């Protein structure tokens, strides 16, 4: 029921938003038919949708900054942020405790939530298109648990030190994510090409094996480390300092851009590999690019956030109802909404039982789980 309304709304929305792009004169023949120009993704609708979502994301960011152990008035918040932007460190100090709380405690955390959520959703979009399965995400394929295993081993052996501003933990996580992609890819290409169903099965099995290994690693840690590991596994955002955050942001941006460049090809890949190939897509290259980019993005994200489930699955699905299936819009729109979803979820996680923090993975799972079941049982969720 809700589904039907949702779709009608999105169709109306498309029609309304894209109406001015094709002048009536361009649509030939006065036939009683729907003009083609109205029912496709147009540059104008692309711009409008993304501008609107960016505006909403900024708004959510400002609201999330308000909440924490103590609530900060919105006007005060904007004044302090403005001060910090204009005068930097001096501005923060002149704002006193509020300045420190806002700019050095909450803002990094909220920005990190935005980046993590955005990446998980974008990776989810890419993997769903690749697997032609609306239920795929980094977890189903075992990428996240591979990354978690890498990170777990780094914690177990107490690895520290940095390589190119990256500390050992994210590097191990990325290595783990890459490892699971390589293993999945290896299993699935045993027959010379990459059949999607084999790949999905390989991912599920690998996920089980890596999860077991993560539990094993956790069980042999010293108790104080294993507690940290557990809460990390449940999904907890730990914000690094600003320079490290900047490096992370740059790295994620590059990955997202690589993913985004495949958007038009991803559209065709959802038709199936054979159809995509017959329409001129270099299928193997696109698949490799999307897989390895996804692995590296997921590894980086898991290392700063642990295991946060459902964002990569739920957000792309919901956005598809809202924006249509064209990946040129779906991918950036999902990234924005994934980011703002995790900002909101993390704000709930850190304020609901303050000063105790709930792992944000618990919040996203509690919100996402029922939606997942709804998808499984609804017509839209059927496996491709």
């Amino acid at each position: 029921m809700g589904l039907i309304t949702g779709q009608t709304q999105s169709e109306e929305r498309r029609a309304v938003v894209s109406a001015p792009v094709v002048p009536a004169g361009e649509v030939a023949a006065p036939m009683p038919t729907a003009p083609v120009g109205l029912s496709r993704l147009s540059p104008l609708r692309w711009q409008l949708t993304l501008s609107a979502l960016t505006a909403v994301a900024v708004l959510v960011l400002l609201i999330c900054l308000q909440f924490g152990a103590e609530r900060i008035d919105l006007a005060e918040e904007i004044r302090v942020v403005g001060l910090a932007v204009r005068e930097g460190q001096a501005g923060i100090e002149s704002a006193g405790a509020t300045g420190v709380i806002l700019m050095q405690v909450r803002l990094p955390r909220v920005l990190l939530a935005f980046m993590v959520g955005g990446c998980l959703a974008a990776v989810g979009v890419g993997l769903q298109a690749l697997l032609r399965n609306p239920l795929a995400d980094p977890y189903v394929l075992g990428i996240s648990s591979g990354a978690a295993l890498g990170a777990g081993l780094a914690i177990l052996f107490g690895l520290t030190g940095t390589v190119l501003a990256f500390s050992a933990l994210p590097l191990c996580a990325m290595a783990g994510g890459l490892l699971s992609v390589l293993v999945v890819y290896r299993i699935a290409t045993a027959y010379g090409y990459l059949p999607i169903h084999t790949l999905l099965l390989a991912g599920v099995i690998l996920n089980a094996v890596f999860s077991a290994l993560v539990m094993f690693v956790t069980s042999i840690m010293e108790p104080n480390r294993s507690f940290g590991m557990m809460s990390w596994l449940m999904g907890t955002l730990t914000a690094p300092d600003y320079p490290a955050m900047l490096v992370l942001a740059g790295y994620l941006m590059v990955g997202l851009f690589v993913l985004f460049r495949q958007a038009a090809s991803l559209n065709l890949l959802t038709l199936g590999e054979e159809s995509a190939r017959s329409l001129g897509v270099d299928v193997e290259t696109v698949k490799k690019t999307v897989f390895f980019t996804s692995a590296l993005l997921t590894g980086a994200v898991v290392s700063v956030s642990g295991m946060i489930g459902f964002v990569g699955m739920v957000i792309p699905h919901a956005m598809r109802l809202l924006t249509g299936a064209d990946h040129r819009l779906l991918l950036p729109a999902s990234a924005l909404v994934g980011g703002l979803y995790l900002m909101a979820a993390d704000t709930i996680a850190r304020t609901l039982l303050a000063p105790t923090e709930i792992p944000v993975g618990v919040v996203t799972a509690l919100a996402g789980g029922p939606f997942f079941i709804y998808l499984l049982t609804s017509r839209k969720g059927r496996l491709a």
Partner: protein
Amino acid sequence: MKETTEVHAYSVDGLRFSYGHPGGSRSVNGWVLDGLTFDVRPGEIVGVLGPNGSGKSSLLKILAKVLRPQEGSVRLFGRELLGMPQHDVARAVALVPQESQIAFPFSITEMVLMGRFPHHRRNIGLSGLGWEGPEDIRVAEAAMRETDVLHLAHRSITDVSGGERQRAIIARALTQEPKVLLLDEPTAFLDLHHQLDICSILRRLNQERGLTVILVSHDLNLASQYCDRLLLLDRGRTVRLGFPEEVMTPEVLEEVYRCRVLVDRHPQSGLPRVTLPGRPMTEA
């Protein structure tokens, strides 16, 4: 027929293909296609017939470079198919697959416009966006009008009937502006009216633009009526290649399909018409 120096649309020579491990033993699965050799002239309509599992669909996929044969060569307008980039193939050859399972709610228009991908993929450039231009939209709209799906332009491909989806996919193939159209059971999901429509569209494009058509069909009568030549396959080998009158004889069909058939003449065209035997009562 005429001794030609013209370039064939397709020259297939000694084609062998099997699914399975490239390094592994092929004898386990056996050859799906076992030594096919034939030519298709530009502007011809060729029907590929044969029982289930005779390799018809695999043949079409090889002709579209979706599958790679293990042995033999395929030349497309004189160029070695396997040496051509996939997007070059896609500008010359469009494939309408037998089944299209589409999991995501693209609108029919978006679906049809995907046929422009091999043409505008160069515009995609650094940004990855590559918006469709007025020319792309004009071609798509013409194709949609031709296949009678223009009124469905805004509908989601996941919500329309099987026949409507099939017509949309034929529209997508026409939007590729191909020189060769490959169709796998194009009329399987269509009602009589739209079967006839699709056949006459194919015939018209064939006559007006010289479109070469290769279609796989189980419908022997349709193939007989609309195809210039027929290629009859059985277990990956050519049984007959020739005009409908040469291929559609009771002896040949009974040997290949292993059942009794009646062949008479179509009342209008005089071409062979195949009927299954009636109930014993009428024979008595």
